[in-house]
């Protein structure tokens, strides 16, 4: 039968080994050659867009990269789906946007802020998502 000492060795050993592998894989994932996110294309506008995204907790209703809340549409490929004009209209309108009955907060962003958010969405839209992008309808380009 397993002794308490052996049980402890199993715990400590397993933890240390898997943790080291985890760190190794993390470093590997973010090495330049493995980059799938076009890291070099993150412009000042993209960063400002991300700040606005966070400051207003957009993720509290929407998902992006499949993460967030389940109340409003996934926005990963939103530029492809709707086009920039539509998005700008949603972001700048001073009244609640509710084309299907469900309301979005009326942020009334300035033209510049809207442009930053669109830059952020454009960057997000070009990330290689290991095939997720073909599934997430209605983002999916059929085929």
């Amino acid at each position, binding site marked *: 039968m*397993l002794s*308490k000492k052996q*049980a402890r060795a*199993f*715990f400590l050993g*397993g*933890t240390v080994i*898997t*943790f080291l592998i*985890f760190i190794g*894989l993390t470093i*590997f*994932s*973010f090495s330049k050659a493995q980059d*799938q*996110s076009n*890291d070099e294309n*993150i412009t000042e506008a*993209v*960063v400002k867009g*991300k700040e606005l*995204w*966070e*400051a*207003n*907790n*957009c*993720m*509290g*209703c929407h*998902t992006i*990269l*499949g*993460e*967030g*809340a*389940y*109340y*409003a*549409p*996934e926005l990963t490929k939103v530029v492809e789906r709707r086009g920039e004009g539509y998005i700008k209209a949603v972001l700048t309108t001073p009244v*609640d946007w509710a*084309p*299907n*009955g*469900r*309301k979005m*907060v009326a942020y009334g962003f300035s033209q510049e802020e809207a442009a930053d958010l669109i830059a952020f969405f454009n960057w997000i839209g070009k*990330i*290689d*998502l*290991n*095939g*997720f992008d073909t*599934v*997430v*309808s*209605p983002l*999916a380009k*059929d085929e």
Partner: protein
Amino acid sequence: MKYKSQKVAYWFFALSMLLFGLQIVYGFIMGSAHAGYDGLHSIIPFNTARAVHTNLLVVWLLSGFMGAAYYIIPEEAQRELVNVKLAYVQLISLAVVGVIAIVGYHFNYWEGRKFLEIPRPLDYLVVVNVLLFLGLILTTLFKGKRKTTTALVLSMGLLFAALLYLPGMLPFDSQVKDSFFRWWVVHLWVEGVWELIMGGILSFLLIKLTGVDREVIEKWLYVIVGLTFLSGVLGTGHHYYYIGVNKIWLIVGGIFSALEPLAFLAMALFAVNMYRKGEKKHPNKLALYWTLGAAIVSFMGAGLLGFAHTLPQTNKYTHGTLVTAMHGHLAFWGAYAMIVLAIISYSLPNMTGRKLYESTRGRVAFWLSNIGMIGMTVAFGVAGVAQVYLERKFKMEFMAVQKEIEIHFVVLILCATIFLTGIISYMIDFYKHGKPNDEALETVSN
């Protein structure tokens, strides 16, 4: 209760109860919004309700874990807490930070990162608060007469939980990196170090309630937490499949996260077997219900429902849908909410001296809350599966699908009402126990 300072735990539990009640209110607001009734939109938009709902959950669970530690550590270490006054300071500062954060969420003061919405300046206060807590617990443990495995595992869980909060505070310009390290907090908490906390509390309760030899229980505790880390650390990969990082995570995350249910299965088998084996039957039946319940329901919510969407082939379709919410509810409920309610049910009679071990109200609380929560899980599940098919297989528009599944949120609200009735019963029981007092010292043999 053996040591006067254990009474501090009561106030952490009371704070837990209060925040838990509030959490449920915001749950109803969101459920109604999903069902088509968003009348509160202009004052409490969905994202506010959601941030409040999930953050209150985390804070009440943490307050419950802290209370558990203040109760368990003195008893295990066989000495009074090193400083009771500071423990109250810690309690009040926890409550204050929590309240500021929650109020802030109503005024667009937050950082929109799922589960980590607390704004940066408040993060530092959280860190100070937790350091104070850990300082008190760890010095008590190390000055104590004995250092049991139960106490060590519990403290280790609390310490690691604090350390893992830090990667969540790193600033990144890239959403991909931001998300990657956010999981170091969220995943490595619930599928890692919190399981140590749960394991420690579970082990303490089983020792007290079943009378099985400590050596036997603690040996299995090591096996369980061993399985947890062995699968859970690399299992983090199940959040990295589709966020813009290397495909290697599909393999690593897939294999290791598929093993994660083993730790929860082990926990359930462990609890049930120790109960069967135990000679001594402690009269506190309600505590036993919650303890065994936590071990079993966590296996259902985290183990089975987690497994249901953890393979990359499935997750590709379910990622970011209501299927996730289905799993999130039963997992959090079974593993962490129920273990906190278990330690409260066990310790409350010991701290107050009122031995309400068996009451109809207590049983009603247990059964209604569990039946309600399972009903809610089914409602989320049906809505989620329908969403996956309509949206991702048949490529319908998001909002068109939401209209189709509105009815399931009416069912959700009905089940949530059953759940709430159970929780209200629990709270009445809590209140009926009265305040902790020194007359309760040593009145119970264990």
